Structure formats: C-alpha cells, structure tokens
C-alpha cells in the first residue's frame, strides 16, 4: 500500500513507469498489470522494512530489472506479439466489444445484401450471359449501383449521418440510376462502355462524402478517404486472389465427382462474391485501421524510385535516339494510366508523410517523378495534337483527352507546389490541400462523361 503521506507522488511515479512499459510492443496490458502488482508489493515490503516511499520505489524499479532486457525476454517468449495482429475485438481490454460486434453484424448483412442485389435482375430475366449483349450492357451500366449504395449505407450507419445528408446521397444515387437506364444506348456501343467506366468514378465521390461524415469539407477528412480508398483497393485485390484460389478448388473437386460447376461459378459465385467482397473489404479496412501498418504508403515508397528511373530512362532514350512517337489508338489511354499511377504514387506518399518534417531525399525523388511524367506526357500530347483532326473525335478519344488534361493540370500544379516546398517557400500542407480539393474535379468530369456524352455522340 502506498504511503499515506505521499499518495500522489508514488501514484504518479507508478503511472509514469506504467506508461513507459506500455510502449513496449512485446509487453501487453495484462503483463503490465502483473508487473505493476509486483512493483507495488515490493514497494510496500520495502516501506515496511523502513525505507521512505520514493526510495522504496527506486529500489523496486531497480530490482525489476533493465526494461530493455526485460522487453527482450518478453519478446523471446512472445515473438508473435512483434507482428501486429489483426485483432478485431481485443481479448485483453474488452473495452469496445458491443460496437465492434454490431459493426461486424451490419457489415456482414450489407455484404449479403450486395451479393443478393446483384442477382435480383435475374428474377426479371436478366442473365449474365455472353450470348445476351443487352443484358451484358445492363449489368455493365449498373454494376456500381448494385454495390455502392450498400457501401454508402454502411458508412451512413457507422457515422450516424443526419437525414439532410441522407437525402442528398439518395438523390445522387437515384439520379445516377435514372441516367444510366433511360438513355437509348446502342448495343455494345462506345457510350455505354464509357458510362460503365465513369459511373463508378463519379459515385465513388458520393461514397467519400458518406465516409468522411461531416468532415468532407476538411482536408483531413478527404485525406482519410484517400487513405481508405488505397487500402480498400489492396484488400480487395487480396480477397480476389483468395477467391480465385477458392474458385479453382471448387471447380477441381467437383470435377473429380463428375459435376460441372462452371455455370454456378459464372452466374453465382463470381458476381455475388465480387459484390459482397467490396463491403467486406471496406469493413476490414475500418476494423484494422490502427492495428496493421497501412500498405499503400509502403508500396509507394517501393515504386516511386522505380517509376522515376523508368521515366527518366524513357525520356533519355527519346532524346538520344530522336525516334518519333508511334501514334496508336491506345496511346492517349496509356498516358492517362501513366499519369494516374504517378498521381497515385504522389497521393499515397503524401498521405503517410508528416507535413511538419523538412524536405528530404525522397521528396526530391518525388519531384523528379512528377516532372519526368509531365515531360513524357507533354511529348505524347505534342505528337497527338498535330494529327487529332485526322483521327476524328470519337467519344473514347474525347474522354481520354479530357482525362489527360485533368491529370496534367493536377500534376503541373502539384509540381509547382512541391518545388516551392523543397525551396522552403511553402508548406507541405499546401500540396495536401491541392490534392484533396481536386477530388471533385474527377467526379465532375465523370459526371459529364456519363450525362453529356451519350446524347452528344448520339448513343453510339
């Protein structure tokens, strides 16, 4: 028992010691409690033997042993603890079991709902079948409308959004559904393909508004959404890989007993799994947020130098050999993808960077990457500009050109802001603000492609 004369002092000292111990990854909260009990017993014993409380504390801490050595011993016994584990509901603390479990239940129900939703059209005779082009078109146009409203619903539930926000989100989804389904698209045409591609991009912003809750107007809120999107993508790819393995096994073992499950896989397992996995992956990203290191920034660290080297070598080769750029149909799309990847690298390294730190070598590399991408794209645009008239303005080409200009503007201004930051003339937060404020531009362009393009190009 602590000395009644100095109750505050000893408690404070123990608090400090405890918080110091808690920072050790190998020593868990239960162990700290066990060690604390030991320390208190030791102090009480020494006080009884005639020591002053603070002396007793010092002796007790000394006897406990060097903390580095101690945490090394704990790490040797509990080596698994050095891996950040995916613990969804912590067994030790038991602090937040109720919301965690409710969250799991809601996410699971919504995932099932998404899996069911994708099969609802088959009740009305719509089949995912390569011999029925109209049905394929229908699914392509509406794919995001089966899944994203449910995902949005998850965040509405989780962030407890008010009815006014709810109304706007509902209006956006209904409007998207109407536009995607009332236009008289030509079967398997260009404009229906563009709609299928751009509708999810536009609706992703709606998901973002729900994700950010009331924080969409803040830079930090939108940045969190960017982080979420990157992690979701990585999780989705991982789940898809696992799903692929599962599917292969299903096909294999049923073939062993002479049953062909191909139709079942094609029309049930694949579409339902892919739809449900979006919600499951989102829930996982939310649940593990603080438990596992974010992957997207790690990947950008790895690939930024490689992409910078690739682009520099490309530009060098272009200059050295003087070869003209061979203008092909897909050239613009290829460069759009390149710019999108570069922006992704920029975004995700920015999302993990502490904005207060001064510039370092990686920032220089980042600028080199952005500038080389800008130069490469400028060369490509220059080559195309002269001959765009010959090709004519098909919907695909106009969309690709618009995207190229949007990405180019983003990257050019990012380069300016980044160089200012490197030269000590600006803050890193300026770049963050620019990137997060630019998000609506992508959605706006996607909306234009979905709403204006089909009538403008006569639904070809």
């Amino acid at each position, binding site marked *: *028992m602590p000395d009644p004369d100095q109750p505050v002092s000893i408690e404070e000292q123990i608090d400090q010691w405890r918080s110091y111990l808690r920072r050790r990854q190998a020593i868990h909260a*239960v*162990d700290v*409690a*066990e*060690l604390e*009990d*030991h320390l*208190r*017993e*030791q102090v009480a*014993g020494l006080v009884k033997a005639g020591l002053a409380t603070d002396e007793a504390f010092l002796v007790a801490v000394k*006897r*406990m*042993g*060097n903390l580095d*050595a*101690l945490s090394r*011993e*704990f790490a*040797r*016994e*509990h080596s698994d603890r050095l891996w950040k584990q995916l613990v969804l509901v912590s067994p030790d603390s038991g602090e937040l079991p109720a919301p965690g479990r409710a969250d799991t239940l809601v996410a699971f129900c919504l995932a099932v709902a998404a899996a069911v939703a994708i099969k609802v059209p088959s009740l009305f005779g719509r089949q995912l079948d390569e011999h029925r082009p109209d049905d394929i078109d229908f699914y392509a146009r509406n794919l995001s409308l089966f899944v994203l409203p449910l995902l949005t619903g998850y965040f509405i539930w989780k962030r407890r959004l008010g009815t006014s926000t709810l109304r706007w989100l509902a209006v956006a989804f209904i409007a998207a559904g109407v536009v995607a389904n009332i236009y008289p698209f030509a079967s398997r045409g260009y404009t229906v393909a563009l709609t299928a591609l751009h509708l999810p991009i536009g609706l992703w912003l709606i998901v973002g508004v729900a994700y950010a809750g009331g924080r969409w107007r803040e830079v930090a809120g939108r940045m969190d959404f960017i982080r979420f999107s990157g992690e979701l993508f990585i999780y989705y790819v991982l789940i898809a890989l696992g799903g692929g393995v599962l599917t292969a096994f299903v096909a294999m073992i049923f073939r062993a007993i002479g049953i062909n499950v191909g139709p079942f896989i094609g029309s049930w397992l694949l579409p339902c799994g892919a739809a449900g996995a979006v919600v499951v992956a989102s829930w996982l990203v939310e649940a593990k947020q603080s438990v596992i290191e974010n992957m997207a920034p790690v990947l950008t660290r790895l690939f930024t130098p490689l992409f910078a080297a690739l682009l520099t070598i490309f530009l060098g080769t272009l200059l050295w050999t003087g070869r003209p750029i061979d203008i092909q149909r897909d050239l613009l799309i290829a460069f759009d993808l390149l710019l999108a990847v570069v922006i992704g690298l920029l975004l995700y390294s920015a999302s993990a960077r502490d904005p207060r730190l001064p510039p370092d070598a990686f920032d220089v590399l980042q600028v080199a990457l952005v500038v080389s991408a800008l130069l490469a794209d400028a060369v490509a645009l220059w080559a195309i500009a002269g001959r765009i008239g010959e090709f004519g303005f098909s919907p695909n080409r106009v969309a690709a050109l618009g995207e190229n200009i949007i990405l180019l503007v983003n990257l050019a201004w990012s380069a300016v802001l980044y160089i200012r930051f490197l030269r000590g003339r600006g803050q890193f937060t300026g770049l963050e603000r620019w990137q997060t404020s630019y998000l609506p531009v992508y959605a706006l362009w996607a909306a234009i492609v979905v709403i204006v393009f089909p009538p403008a190009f006569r639904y070809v």
Partner: protein
Amino acid sequence: MEINKDLIAASSTSLVLAILAEGDSYGYAIIQRVRELSGGQLEWTDGMLYPVLHRLERLGYVMARWDVAENGRRRKYYRITSEGGAQLTEERKQWQAVDATLRGIWRALSTAIPNNNGESAAPLPEGV
C-alpha cells in the same frame, strides 16, 4: 558471491515448479520464497521471472488465473498442473544426478586442495 546467470537460468524452471508444488502462488511471493530458500544468494532480476512463468504456462506446466488479492487489487496466481508435476519429478532426477556427480568430485578435491577461491573464478561463458 554472485551466481552465474546461466546457472540461474538453468535452475529457474525447477525452482519455480517446486515452489508452486508447495502451493499456488504469484510472482512477488515466488521471488521472496527464492530469496528465503537461498539465503539471499540467488538474486533474480524480478522482471525476468515473468517470461519464465509465461513459458511454463505455454508448455502447460502451470495454469494462471486472475483473482482479487487480500489488498483488493487484481493479481495473477499460478498453479502447477499434473504435467508440471511430472516435469518437476523429471528435473529433480536430473538435478540429483548432477548434484551427486559434483559431490563426488568435491569430496575427492577437498582432500587434495583445501580451499582455493581463485580457481572457482575461472572464466565461464557469460550468459547474455
């Protein structure tokens, strides 16, 4: 006299199991019992006992439970299991064999060299 760390580590399992065989106990009391038994010669670094206890728990030699101590605080108590008892019997046999061997050589030496302290400080491999 300071006892070599390797010796402390080697004897820790047997000591802890034997003390728990006397009755259920907890960390601080185990340390006190070790001090008492060794007359203060076996100085354990207190914290190091816990990884040992956790290892024994993982191996199934002891069982742990949280309980409320007489002072009202939560405390983790350890109890020896039947497997732990079997392990203790096994270790006891081994220690007795080591002890018997050493006793034999001590007896032989004590007639030849009466008391040589310098010899016992020969460089032994230090444990980390």
